[in-house]
């Protein structure tokens, strides 16, 4: 299979698609529409690769196909979805698995140096000094900790014993500066308190290294997709045919369990009408990425869904209790939608910010509580959804206006007006008392 003795410097692009070697390949490539069919196919297929499919031959043609299909996959997803979407998560996870497997495979074949060269371009990495004492920099690591770390890693993988061939993968061997792992902390891929830190160095095993690095690249992929997405939005251009086609094919591979409309089947029929929701709220309901989670769930969805459901006139109200007689509207209809949207965020909002559950009820006017009652209504302010101009400024990636958006200045107006127009046209929509 791989003639690894013939590996060229360009092979680094296989381990780091954002390396200069990869950029040079992209710059020298033909326009997207002119890419050969096998690269287009590869851009879709790579989402579902397993083990050996992830490996790349060390010849220039294979490296080129690998890099171009990677960029086609990213740009295609950016053109049909949005940052933090299911599609982005799908390609991010696939890329992480691919990178991890490639690192593992190269280590196994005695090509650890190549991996380390790729890693060291982004992360400050040193070898542990393992002799009579175990040291990193000027700090000594107790031998007992060294072996405990091995055992903890084995336990994490559910292993009690492993053979001598596998064992070295679980022994601490390197150290990296924790501050270089900031992108992983930011995206909650790693937790600082789960790292073994000494003098600013995180002590890691080879397996940790593969995992950290694979996560590192997948986080960079997410940032890259976001930048492409913003570029597309700014330019206002329609994505090219090949991008749309590849994007849609990747979309079709997303597991089907999350679709907004299905979720609304739970509420009594005819109450919330998601088909009249503005695009920004639909996007927010599908879950968003780390930087936008609070804004999307707390400031946009919570007021929007609560006013849309409870105050049918859309007029400013001070207390929800003026509109509802039964708290189950809040607890069983509105809150579950919000909790599910929060769960779909990446990472799920309540995973690292459980206190925000109470924040949801706070923004609906019930004060800081997770068990709201009608008598709590009015304890805090019942927030209105922000105006479109504000959303555009605070969450530009969620603002993908359609034709109807031009007529309104607030997402709630969009909803009520669209529903009203549909009812006039015989669509059957009507307000119901909550």
């Amino acid at each position, binding site marked *: 299979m791989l003639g690894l003795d013939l590996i060229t410097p360009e092979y680094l692009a296989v381990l780091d698609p954002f390396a200069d070697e990869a950029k040079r390949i992209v710059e020298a490539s033909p326009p997207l529409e002119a890419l050969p069919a096998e690269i287009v196919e590869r851009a879709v297929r790579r989402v579902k690769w397993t083990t050996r499919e992830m490996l790349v031959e060390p010849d220039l043609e294979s490296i080129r196909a690998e890099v171009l299909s990677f960029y086609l996959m990213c740009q295609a997803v950016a053109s049909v979805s949005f940052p933090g979407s299911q599609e982005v998560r799908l390609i991010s996870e696939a890329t992480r698995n691919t990178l991890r497997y490639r690192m593992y495979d190269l280590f196994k074949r005695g090509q650890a140096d190549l991996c380390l060269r790729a890693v060291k371009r982004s992360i400050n990495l040193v070898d542990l000094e393992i002799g009579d004492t175990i040291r990193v920099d000027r700090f000594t690591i107790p031998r*007992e900790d060294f072996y405990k770390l091995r055992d903890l890693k084995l336990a994490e993988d559910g292993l009690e014993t492993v053979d001598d061939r596998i064992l070295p993968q679980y022994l601490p061997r390197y150290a990296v500066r*924790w501050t270089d792992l*900031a992108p992983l*902390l*930011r995206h909650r891929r790693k937790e*600082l*308190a789960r*790292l073994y*830190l000494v*003098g600013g160095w995180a002590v890691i095993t080879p397996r940790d290294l593969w995992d950290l690095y694979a996560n590192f690249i997948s986080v960079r992929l997410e940032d890259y997709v976001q930048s492409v997405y913003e570029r597309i939005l700014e330019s206002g251009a329609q994505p090219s045919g090949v991008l749309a086609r590849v994007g849609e094919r990747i979309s079709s591979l997303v597991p089907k369990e999350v679709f907004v409309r299905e979720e609304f089947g739970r509420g009594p029929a005819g109450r919330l009408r998601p088909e009249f929701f503005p695009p920004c709220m639909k996007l927010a309901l599908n879950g968003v990425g780390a930087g936008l989670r609070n804004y999307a769930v707390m400031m946009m969805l919570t007021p929007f869904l609560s006013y849309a459901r409870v105050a049918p006139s859309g007029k400013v109200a001070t207390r929800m209790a003026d509109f509802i007689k039964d708290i189950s509207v809040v607890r069983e209809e509105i809150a579950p939608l919000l909790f599910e949207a929060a769960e779909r965020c990446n990472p799920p909002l309540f995973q690292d910010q459980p206190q925000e559950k109470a924040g949801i009820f706070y923004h609906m006017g019930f004060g800081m509580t997770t068990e709201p009652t009608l008598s709590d209504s009015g304890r805090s302010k019942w927030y209105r959804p922000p105006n479109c101009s504000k959303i555009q400024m605070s969450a530009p990636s969620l603002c993908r206006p359609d034709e109807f958006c031009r007529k309104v200045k607030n997402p709630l107006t969009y909803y009520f007006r669209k529903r009203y127009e549909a009812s006039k046209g015989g669509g059957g929509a009507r307000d119901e008392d909550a």
Partner: protein
Amino acid sequence: MRMREATPEERRRFYLEEWDKREVPDFILHTISLREFGFDLDGKGPNNRYNQFTTVEQLGDFLRSRAPYSAYASVALYERPSAREGWLKAELVLDIDAKDLPLKPCGCPPGSVCERCLEEARQVAKQFAEVLAGDLGLRNISFVYSGRGFHIRVNDESVMTLEGNERAQVVDYVTGGVIPSDFTLALGYSQVFRERLVRTFRALGPEKLLEVKGLRKSVVQRLMQEKERVIEMIRRGRLEEISSLEGLGPKTFRSLLEFLTRLNAEFTDGKVTIDTKRILRLPSSLHSGVSMKCLVVRDIDRFRLEEAVPKFLREGEG
């Protein structure tokens, strides 16, 4: 030490006679034109924002002419501080407010401070800074006495571009705010967590322990009676032995552990740390609410509250 509000006349006197530009720390002095300054001119809150000074003399002129109730500078550096635009980087900051300590060694009511709780805040600040310098390997760490507590201000380039999420994890690490996967490792977070747990558990009284879900009165009494033994178990990382105390099953032990961990996290206000555009009280300025000087602490071990007493208060009491 009596802490009381300064009068407008005392504020004026302080800024005319006592304020000294040499007490503005270098980390602010060298970046003064890149920081946003905010002022509370009348004791109603820091509403006067978006100020920029290109020299410390300009800042001094402003302070002397307006004698503000409070003065603040941003932890962030901006390309255009007067518009709060072009964020470049921000200090990493921990705020240990003596009035908000979750467990106060003194009887003073919530929201107020005395010398004992300030001393407790000093100890906490010192412990936090040891972890920042030790485990996290950070340099350029300064302490500031803020009037009601202490600020730790880290001007290490490697952390100044961190965003809120990463800073929140630093708070978790330094405070012992998450339960670790292992309690027995000699170094790293395992050690930090054990130390924080010991401090928190030692300071706990029976009333506070009764807040733990499922913890019966008799078990609380036992935990209090055997406090030193429990502390020893924590120190040695043998936390599972605590759960074997009579009447304390694994489930209640978990509740207890979660309760202690939550308390650990409350020793600093995490919102201050994660806010990369925060304004913090300006070292050298007067905290008019308590009539104390906010100042850089050169040696945290030898800090004496008297250093922060302004002349007008000393003379008034002398």
